[in-house]
């Protein structure tokens, strides 16, 4: 039998720091470039204010640090590898979405809160803090309501219901406060631009397809993690792939609900995306949030494919599988790079 050998699980702190700095720097550069291109466009609906740029930049840099494990340090080296890859994937993917032009500050803040809330619920014993964060995210953007599935599926029976109820109460409260302060209603958070509303169904499919190209790398790893969780005979038995997000400290082994809950969250979002296909173009970032959390587990699963000198073609397959998520990053990277070039030469 072969399998499971992986020589990439060495701890490389310098590489991690450099990669994280580059990721965060890339997000900051895109936000600045995106803001800079406001002057070059006539479409004011796509313009970004200074406040929005700050919120988007801070939210996504924080989310990158969160996903890459910096905010929740610890774990084995192989876990940190997965987290680092998830962080890099997040930063490049999100840069593409920022460059795409329809990402709003409310969604960015809500996305960070939902990611943080789900992470806290899954990784730490402080589920109530997680419930508050998820509730706040729901208040900012109702599309985050699907994150309640994490609260409803993880934990003991009574706590699950109570946590979800607490999140709903917080969400309603945040919604009321926002409405009274800014006049922004929950319905407005689901609106999309007139240009998107005018698109016919067959063109909308193509539009959504090109949007999906931007998030394909992270969806690939998420689907691999979900498949691993669902089909693998050993999933949850080891400190590997799916259990990477489902074995927080303080939770006894043998209870493997993390990756499952994230998969359910992703499935609910897929159903929402089918029902509200136009929302994907404007608010699709919120629908792929669980995929960002599953990416680390997906990377860990990919890393269990063997490298074996006696079987070169299988090793080639393993290498291609590891390279593919990064190759697919070319699409969002190019999208973001175009904005940077426009801003650079435009100035």
């Amino acid at each position, binding site marked *: 039998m072969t399998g499971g050998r992986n020589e990439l699980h060495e701890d490389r702190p310098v590489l991690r720091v450099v990669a994280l700095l580059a990721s965060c720097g890339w997000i900051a550069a895109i936000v600045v470039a995106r803001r800079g291109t406001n002057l070059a466009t006539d479409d004011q609906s796509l313009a970004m204010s200074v406040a929005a740029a700050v919120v988007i930049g801070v939210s996504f840099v924080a989310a990158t640090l969160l996903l890459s494990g910096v905010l929740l340090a610890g774990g084995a080296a192989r876990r940190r590898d997965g987290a680092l890859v998830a962080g890099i994937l997040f930063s490049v993917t999100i840069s593409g979405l920022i460059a795409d032009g329809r990402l709003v500050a409310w969604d960015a803040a809500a996305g960070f809160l939902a990611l943080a809330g789900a992470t806290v619920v899954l990784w730490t014993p402080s589920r109530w803090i997680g419930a508050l964060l998820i509730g706040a995210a729901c208040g900012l953007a109702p599309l985050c309501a699907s994150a309640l599935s994490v609260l409803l599926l993880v934990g003991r029976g009574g706590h699950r219901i109570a946590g979800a109820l607490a999140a709903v109460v917080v969400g309603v409260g945040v919604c009321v406060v926002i409405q009274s302060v800014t006049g922004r209603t929950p319905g407005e958070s689901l609106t999309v631009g007139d240009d998107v509303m005018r698109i016919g169904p067959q063109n909308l499919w193509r539009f959504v397809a090109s949007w999906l190209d931007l998030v394909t790398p992270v969806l690939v790893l998420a689907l691999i993690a979900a498949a*691993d969780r669902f089909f693998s005979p050993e999933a949850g038995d080891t400190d590997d792939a799916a259990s990477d997000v489902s074995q927080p400290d303080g939770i006894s082994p043998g209870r*493997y*609900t993390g990756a499952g809950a994230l998969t359910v969250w992703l499935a609910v979002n897929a159903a929402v995306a089918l029902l509200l296909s136009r929302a994907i173009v404007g608010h699709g970032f919120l629908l792929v949030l669980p995929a960002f959390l599953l990416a680390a587990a997906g990377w860990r699963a990919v890393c*269990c494919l063997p490298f074996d000198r006696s079987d070169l073609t299988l090793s080639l397959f393993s290498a291609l599988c590891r390279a593919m998520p990064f190759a697919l990053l070319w699409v969002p990277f190019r999208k973001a790079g175009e904005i940077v070039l426009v801003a650079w030469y435009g100035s």
Partner: protein
Amino acid sequence: MNGAGINGLDGKEVCGTRGRACVIAAAVALIVGVHIAGRVGAYCSPLSSDDSYIFAGFGCRMAHGDVLYRDMSDIKPPGLFMVYGLVYRVAPAVRAAVVPVETVFLLLGYAAVYYAAAEAFGRRAALAVTVLSALTINYFSVTGVAIVGFGVAENFMVFPAAATAWMYVRALRTGREGALLAAGVFMGVGTCLKQTALPLVVALTIHWTLVMLIRRRSTARWIRGLLRMFLGGCIGWAPAIALLAMQGTLLTAVRLLTSDAGAMLARGCAWPDEWRDVLPLWVPMVWAAWALARRIECGVRGESMMETGSARVVTFLMLWTAAEVVMLWRLPLRSPHYYVVSCVPFMLLAGVPIAAFGRSVTKMAPRARTVAWSVAVVLSGVFLRPVVDEIVPRAIGAYRSYDWAEEQRRFDEALDWGPIHFGRGDPFIAELER
């Protein structure tokens, strides 16, 4: 935390039977979804060619007493006209009447592809090959510009072509010569639908000759096998020959289907212009490249990449693919609907790398094996997504622009053509004799 976890998602029982059931259900759902999108796109397309009106119109006229190859004729064999004639014996005179029969033939085609691939490479590879085939067939059906593939002979030929391969592979693997008779029947049905089934006949004959005369050196079995296939072909053609003989148009049909149809060859080239024209074949081609590397590696190590006996099947499929390529080179029109049936051997060949991959991952630990299959499926899906992104918007667009009244007007016009002959004299020109 609740030990039971998420209902239905936790615990090891999800593996095994239930996992397989989910995969099969997903594959069937994908096939059905793609089939519906493809059929809607092809049927409703405003580009829908005159071909579907000609075939359906001729069938309807046959059902109401007109004589094929006398009152109306084409350089195509009588099979499809007879099928449509039978349909219009019971169905009203609308073009939509041929939708169910075409769907039945295509579904039978997918099933035959599955069984042919399962016979050659096992069930897991067969499932993947069937999904690929459904995607490919429907892609080539809807992406035509001059001719959109609704109601055309190629859609009906998938079933007899794949069934021929299934029966022939069964005969090769089990030695049952009765299967050769069945292969002959399906070959007969295929050639009765359109002459473009001939590459399969040629490939099969050459392969049978190679296997029997060169490898096994058995002249008696070679002759016996050829006779069985010929007898099967005669059975496949028997209804058409009987009908034409009763009508007294047999000799006219022979001239139209041979010399007149032959004049169409080499008037153009059906070979695709760009790689994008064969988008669904990219993923199988990448897998084929991997399988080639695998074959070389296994050769160096002195191991077998496939199961014993698979080499003969692969040789047959490669011969068939080569024959289809040669034919495409000589067909008169660059239109993707020709690829619908030409892609069948290539799709079956796609089972080779899938089977080889399945065989190679058996050495892995169970977890790694599951991950390897998951990664292979997910990444193949990512690169096949553009195929769906091409089929579905076309289907939506065609559905929204569909005009039933205009369709009925065109169909009524086809019924009122009177004496009409396609392909007599100068091909491509309809000679009207009102």
